């Protein structure tokens, strides 16, 4: 028959059993747990009753490098937050430029359509016109600054992609896609 108390410790076996069954209310449980961790005789009795108690009552392994580990993790967290903040700034800048680029494209397309239908001079070079004859072309062309015809929203340097599906008639509307390269990141 199991002794009610160990030879070296006055804590009764019933208390250990109650702890094991999770039947000890909280403040007492914490105190009893502290005792079980500190007292080898009681700890052995608890583990003999239920070996899984070993995991809770064994002293916790010391962190490998204590404060150094916390500082290292803090450094990594700081670095990750800094990288994320920088990426967000880039994304925001990209987003703003995207809107600006879209506005430029929309304005330029409207301008091109109007220019074409009213037979006003086109603001593209001859090489762009040549490229345009083949349909949708990836024709890298600098915009010729058209002087008085210049729109305030026109970029100073842009690539024009022109789409003209097989018609060369000057009366046909022209659709152009203007990308402002100065907005590239």
């Amino acid at each position, binding site marked *: 028959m199991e002794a009610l108390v160990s030879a070296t410790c006055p804590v009764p076996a019933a208390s250990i059993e109650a702890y094991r069954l*999770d039947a000890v209310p*909280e403040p007492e*449980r*914490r105190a009893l*747990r502290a005792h079980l961790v500190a007292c080898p005789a009681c700890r*052995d*009795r608890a*583990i*003999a009753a*239920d*070996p*899984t*108690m*070993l*995991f*809770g009552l*064994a*002293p*916790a*392994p*010391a*962190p*490998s490098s*204590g*404060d150094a*580990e*916390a*500082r*290292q*993790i*803090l450094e*990594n*967290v*700081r670095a*990750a*937050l800094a990288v994320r903040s920088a990426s967000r700034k880039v994304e925001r800048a990209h987003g703003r430029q995207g809107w600006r680029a879209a506005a430029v494209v929309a304005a330029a397309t409207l301008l091109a359509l109007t220019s074409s239908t009213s037979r006003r001079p086109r603001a593209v070079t001859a090489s762009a016109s040549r490229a345009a004859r083949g349909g949708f072309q990836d024709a890298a062309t600098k915009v010729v600054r058209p002087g008085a015809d210049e729109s305030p929203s026109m970029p100073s340097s842009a690539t024009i992609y022109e789409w003209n599906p097989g018609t060369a008639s000057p009366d046909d509307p022209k659709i152009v896609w203007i990308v402002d390269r100065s907005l590239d990141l």
Partner: protein
Amino acid sequence: MELVYSREREQQKTAEVDDRKLAIRARGGDAIAFETLVLRKTPAVVSVARRIIGDAEEARDVAQLVFLRVWDSLARYDEKYSFNTWLYRIATNLSIDFLRANRSRERAHGATLHLVRRREAALEDEATHALESTQVAELFERVSRDLSGKQKAAFVLREIEGLDSKEVAAILGCGESTVRNHLFNARKALQKKLRKEFPGIFDRWRRS
């Protein structure tokens, strides 16, 4: 250099402020308060993650994710509740997610099996001798592998970290009776595994 020195001095000043106040300050954008919390809470977060995941290196990686998640979620922190409970909840959820992902990877690749077997053999040899705390942690990692994430988290928080059952319930987002259920099942599964794979440990305390 001056900046680093000032930062450390600020951290020392905030060392006496309690967690909840620091969290409120961090929520308002105070980086020093947040960093003080990171330094203060790293050991607890790494410890819980390590017990649930079973690997110190991976636990440190998860701890970093935990603090990033804390920073992102501070706006949602309600100071009516304990900061510790909130932090443990994030740490436990991320550790369980990591454990699940890791298990699916292991299932997919069947990797590390021979290493596990070698470690098992070494543990069994040591099982009849006094176990060091690190060996106990390894033994737990070995025998708890088949527990569900919630069972393992409940056991770690309640039995190993010593939290009260109300707090464990809040962390796991369930009722206290569910926590008791998780604990009961976890304990049963662990006993079965210990008896089967490490009878030396069982007998040692039976004889004592």
